[in-house]
């Protein structure tokens, strides 16, 4: 019998003075995981590095060729460096910037394979100054919606 794996993520927002009335959001989702890749770790990067943290095959290491065709992965990246370290950027397979993280900031996004190109989620430094990132990648599906 196949083993059903689960991943739960919860997100909370509280705002003060951003909107006319305070906004409070609390969301939780539980996702069934049938992908074949899950990895976590930390890396040191500069703008000369474009390290793929999302691979089709964990045994391929962190420079693998991206997600399985049609796959999706939840990707968490946090800049764990200090203010004196470099900023972190998240990029797609073509090294196009998706997100920019300063010290202490983090992102959480469901990244999907693009049918037109291999899909790697890459982490890079924003400058020549070394930056430090923690990441968690969970491939949730091996087929597209």
């Amino acid at each position, binding site marked *: 019998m196949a*083993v059903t*794996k*689960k*991943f*739960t*993520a*919860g*997100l*909370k*927002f*509280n*705002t*003060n*003075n*951003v*909107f006319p009335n305070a*906004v409070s*959001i609390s*969301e939780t*989702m539980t*996702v069934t*995981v049938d992908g074949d890749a*899950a*990895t*976590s770790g930390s890396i040191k990067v500069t703008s000369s590095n474009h390290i793929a943290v999302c691979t089709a095959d964990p045994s391929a290491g962190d420079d693998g060729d991206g997600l399985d065709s049609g796959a*999706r992965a939840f990707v*968490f990246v*946090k800049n764990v460096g200090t203010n004196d370290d470099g900023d972190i*950027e998240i990029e*797609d397979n073509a090294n*196009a*910037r*998706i*997100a*920019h*993280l300063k010290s*202490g*900031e*983090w*992102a*959480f*996004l*469901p*990244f*999907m394979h*693009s049918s*037109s*190109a291999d899909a790697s989620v890459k982490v890079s430094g924003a400058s020549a100054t070394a930056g430090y990132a923690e990441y*968690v990648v*969970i491939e949730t599906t091996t087929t*597209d*919606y």
Partner: protein
Amino acid sequence: MAKSSKVTMSLTMRSSDIIPTGLDRSVSMTLTASDDTSEFGKMVIGTSYEQLDKSAIADRAYVYIKNTSSTSTVVISIAMDESSDGGTSAGNHKGPIFSQLAVGEFALLPYKDVGAQASSDLGIHVKGSAAGEIEYLIFELD
């Protein structure tokens, strides 16, 4: 006196079986939002791209999107302007879909304007596999 606009966000990730060592990670951060742009609400969407951000974002912004569609099969796709297209007409220069959300799923994206668009527009675009709805929140940082 300038107001102090703070946003506190926290995320927990848990699983007992997808990583050999287990996954139990919680993070939080408090950021100062600029006074420039903030949006919060719901948007009814169709199967054609619609631009999520209605106001120009000059530099960095956090974007929260949740698929709140009432029909369980609606999938929301997210794309953004290409970084290298040099486009000047926001909404017409979409890159490939980089993210999809099933009903109930959410994303938190810290976006940095790439500066390639003369309009300095953030350029995040959403569409559904059928008519659906999203909840979203945008606040500019810098």
